[in-house]
């Protein structure tokens, strides 16, 4: 990663940088479908492919924020559709707690977004990414959580 996510010039041109953890079986394919179907969505996300949304450890999310990413998106298969049967159900409980805790600790809840998108839902994927980008953009850059130098 040579991109400078740390430098933040906040002006009207500022665009958030969002890291997206997409499950290999649904959401990543969904993103792919959005691409091949030429559905436009904001170029703010950087995708990390993970085997399952259950693979997403809260460390990933918090580490991303301390590293200076403005937002995090985690996307997996719809409940019941998990390739590994219950990975996303386990993940869902984890996310529920993490989301509440982040809010409780004073991190804007909109910085971390969870969603379901199947391999057939290119359109839905694009819509949700648009929505997530909008939320994060409104929150502004993530400065307080980022590790200072």
């Amino acid at each position, binding site marked *: *990663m*040579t*991109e*400078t*996510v*740390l*430098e933040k010039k906040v002006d009207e041109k500022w665009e958030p940088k969002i890291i997206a953890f997409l499950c290999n079986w649904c959401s990543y394919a969904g993103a792919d479908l959005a691409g091949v179907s030429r559905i436009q969505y904001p170029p703010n996300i950087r995708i990390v492919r993970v085997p399952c949304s259950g693979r997403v450890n809260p460390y990933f999310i918090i580490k991303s924020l301390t*590293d*200076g990413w403005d937002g995090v998106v985690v996307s997996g298969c719809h409940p019941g559709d998990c390739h590994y049967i219950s990975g996303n159900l386990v993940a869902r409980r984890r996310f529920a707690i993490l989301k509440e805790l982040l809010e409780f600790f004073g991190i804007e809840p909109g910085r971390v977004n969870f969603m379901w998108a199947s391999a057939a839902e290119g359109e839905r994927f694009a819509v949700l990414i648009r929505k997530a980008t909008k939320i994060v953009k409104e929150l502004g850059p993530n400065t307080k959580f980022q590790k200072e*130098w």
Partner: protein
Amino acid sequence: MEQKILKKDEIGKLYKEFESEYNFYAPISQKGNIVFEKIENPEDIVLDYLNSKIPPKSVLFPQMEVLFEYTLDEKDVEITDRQDLDQKILIFGIRPCDAYSFELMANFFSFHGNWEDEIYLKKKENTTLIGIGCNNPRTTCFCTSVGGNPFNKENMDVFLTDLGETYLVEGISEKGKEIVNKLSWLSDAADKDVKKSQELATQAEESIVTKMDTDKIVSNLETSFEHPVWEEISESCIGCGSCAYLCPTCTCFDVIDETDQYNNRGRRIRIWDTCQSCLYTLETSGHNPRNTKIQRCRNRIMHKFSYYPTNYDLLGCVGCGRCISVCPANNDLRTILDKIEKIEKEEDEKIVA
């Protein structure tokens, strides 16, 4: 004699004299904890504290300290040394036990092996200590047993005594005498002030209730490495780092590279570490020389009361009692040392019998 009087409301004035030349550190209350911090407002200074929660070692050996900084290029590295070591430091309101701890630390950092810890030693060299006598030692204090004294002036540059309404000011070292001379606005001390300070010193010394025979402890430790008493001693320990972090003579540290990978720069830092953590000695191979709590507890006590005396002929403890008052599991150092002292005696008696 060069004894002067400083009025309690003149601390601000004193601070002004030093502020431009020195980084002025003094005890302040931070959420109920006394810590030594760089002073911005002299009104924050608290001098009638019992014992600071975090020892003033944090000034010269902070919990996190940069060793050097670096920038990474494609195929090159540039290293920048510390530039701030020449700054003058003044520590105001330090207690004799803590001042002595600086000597112990400097001794350790300069003595072992061929290498000297230049970062610490340089800072120490540029440090001036304005200490204050300890009128009310705590019941956990035992400095008199480890060669200290609540009014020990030896390691200070300037020494203050709290006389109630005023402070008695004495220049101790050459540097300190010069400083006192420069503060021409201080009034001269009367004989009764000096007398009172001596009374306070005696009173303080007498008020120390914890007494131990450190010679006996040191000699007992030499032979009791395998003694079952260690099992008992380590029983209640929960393995946290409070004792080591808050000990004024604990010097162990961990070295970490912190890299800002987005900007190709970083710093190598050292942070306090504790021998009570099981990771402290864990080797990459998985082998751990001190795998159990028993061994780790023993190492801490042996280090202060056996290894240190063997290597430097000094005790590695200044008797500040912080580890006693702060231990979450109340694994009291006094009890530990008492056990070490006693159990040997029983064996001696057996031999006599």
